[in-house]
């Protein structure tokens, strides 16, 4: 009996000794001023992104309970004017796991810090294509799709619906211009072209006179199949719908749009993630929340399967064929080994329903249909992952 007790104790002790698997991650939000918009109907939630990371943390903790693995997440906000790089330096000295919401240039500066060497940093806030291309970093992963993935998704819709005569209105903000560039690239990629383009440069209050201004503004496009809006700050786009001279569908940043995540996604078990999120945060889940959730879950999945908290081991696992994340999008999500982008289907939605999910049927690829969206291996000039 006594001996049994000793053996039992030895077993318990052994279990506790090997159970020291704890992953501490940081969430860093760098505040940026948002340009004013015509409507204030949709305020940006203060905890955008963070709420998703916290839901991912809770998912990880529940799984960890059964495996003696622990997770923690500390959030840090850098107000405008403060130095985000100094803060990132401090955070990276404490933990190599960093979930980032910051502009692209700040992200590369953080990834280049000596403290960031060997770290695992997740971009959850910008679709900037350069970060997946020439400006990529070996320690910077992207759970938010690139702009190109989203515009490629819409281009597939145009091809499938045979909307070949397309026009575009572009806003003047840098995000709008980048989106428009990405759209032109996607249209070329899928053999489409624009028959007309205009810049939105009004300073009037559209809440009052959209019905007068927009018909005139869109009249000289003549006839076309669909109108694309490049209005990523959501300034004027909402006033274009149903006010165009020709009765044609509106797509792009408003109307029929391609998004990472939307409250209208309920398929593939997504209803569960949506309700879990809404219960915890009293609001609906946005694309940036989804990207932060996916970052946290990526770390969790890698720890679950490897039982390691060594960033090198986790990075190798995340980039390996064995890794797969169940992301409520109907198929496993994996990372592109050439630039650290999370491969994922893109939802084509309107505000009330999911319309389609890209890649659409018939858009084939020699390796993975998901790689018909965004920068494919031969196109990407990213060398950091080689």
């Amino acid at each position: 009996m006594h001996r049994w007790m000793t053996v039992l104790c030895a077993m318990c002790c052994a279990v506790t000794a090997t159970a020291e698997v704890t992953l501490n991650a940081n969430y860093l939000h760098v505040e940026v001023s948002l340009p004013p918009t015509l409507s204030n109907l949709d305020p940006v939630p203060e905890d955008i992104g963070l709420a998703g990371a916290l839901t991912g943390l809770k998912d990880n903790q529940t799984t960890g309970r059964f495996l003696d693995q622990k997770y923690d997440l500390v959030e840090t906000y850098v107000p405008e004017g403060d130095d985000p790089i100094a803060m990132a330096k401090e955070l990276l000295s404490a933990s190599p796991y960093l979930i980032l919401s910051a502009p692209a240039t700040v992200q590369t500066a953080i990834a280049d810090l000596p403290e960031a060497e060997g770290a695992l940093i997740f971009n959850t806030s910008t679709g900037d294509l350069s970060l997946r291309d020439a400006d990529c970093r070996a320690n910077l992963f992207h759970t938010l799709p690139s702009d190109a993935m989203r515009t490629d998704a819409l281009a597939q819709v145009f091809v499938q619906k045979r909307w070949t005569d397309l026009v575009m209105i572009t806003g003047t903000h840098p995000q709008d211009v980048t989106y428009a560039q990405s759209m032109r690239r996607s249209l070329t990629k899928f053999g489409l072209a624009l028959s007309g383009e205009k810049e939105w440069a009004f300073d009037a209050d559209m809440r009052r006179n959209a019905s007068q201004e927009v018909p005139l503004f869109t009249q000289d496009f003549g006839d076309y199949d669909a109108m694309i809006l490049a209005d990523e700050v959501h300034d004027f786009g909402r006033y274009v719908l149903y006010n165009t001279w020709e009765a044609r569908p509106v797509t792009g940043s408003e109307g029929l749009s391609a998004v990472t995540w939307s409250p209208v996604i309920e398929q593939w078990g997504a209803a569960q993630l949506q309700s879990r999120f809404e219960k915890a945060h009293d609001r609906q889940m946005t694309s940036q929340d989804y990207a932060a959730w996916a970052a946290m879950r990526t770390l969790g999945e890698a720890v679950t399967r490897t039982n390691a908290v060594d960033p090198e081991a986790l990075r190798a696992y995340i980039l390996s064929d064995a890794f797969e994340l169940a992301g409520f999008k109907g198929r496993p999500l994996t990372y592109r080994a050439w630039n650290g982008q999370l491969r994922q289907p893109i939802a084509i939605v309107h505000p009330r329903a999911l319309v389609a999910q890209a890649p659409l049927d018939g858009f084939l690829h020699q390796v993975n249909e998901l790689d018909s969206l965004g920068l494919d291996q031969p196109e990407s000039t990213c060398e950091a992952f080689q």
Partner: protein
Amino acid sequence: MIRTTLAALLLTTTAHAGEIWVTNEKDDTVSVISTETLEVIKTYETGERPRGITFSKDFSLLYICASDSNAVQVMDPNSGEILHDLPSGEDPEQFVLHPDDRHLYIANEDDAITTVVDTETRKVVAQIDVGIEPEGMAVSPDGKIAITTSETTNMAHWIDTETQELFANTLVDSRPRHAEFLRDGSEMWVSSEIGGTLTIFDTATQAEKAKISFEVQGVHPDRVQPVGFEFTEEDTHAFVALGPSNHVAVVNAETYEVEDYILVGRRVWHMDFNEDRSLLFTTNGVSGDVTVIDVAKREAIKSIKVGRFPWGAAFRPTN
């Protein structure tokens, strides 16, 4: 002579009379299909979002998980009348009836809990913390072990039904959906929807014994997603629903080899057999129908339109 044969035939047919009951997730109804005429003979209303469905051992009561009504409903299958609701915990998705014919083990998808309900006293006996989004439920033939699989935690949780506590947690591939024991209890099988595999555990040691993958010609491996499955007579084969690949796989349960793929309706989800297991009825969520498979020939022989998004299926004999 002819008369005798006819009589014999008639007798055999009557002996196998029965019904397949199907929950229609987005119609809040159950459809009743005759296993003889292969037609819908009745449709009854249920609570909101009916999913899991099972009969009491003597088939006198039907239990339905009305997920969005947060209840397990008890129906009189002869009248279609809802007799009463059982407390079920929040968002009951799937459940299994213990061999004692009395205790229901219920997966509460939104709450990361397995609830054990006594169907006689109509009281909750235990609530067990499990992983995120519990779904697949099974109980061993001797009644000693209950299984819950959790979709986001990616585990099979092993519950000791005497203490109502977990005694093992085993990792499986992504999004485990369904679990079943072999009739002799020696093996426990789990399907992983996103992982695209079936994992087979040795019940005695809870150790992984084998893993089965699938390959459907012309369908990308990512879209081949095993969900519900059932064993044939004598446990020689398993029929496995492969979700959006719109196929059912036939797996040899001894060699673990996949022998056949049968084309069925869209997003095939769960299934059940008729009495002699000669016919298999699969629920096809997206196409809103049930495919009837001739088990011996391994061929789909008919599609039967039911309600919107058919989910679960359960058989009851009617003679």
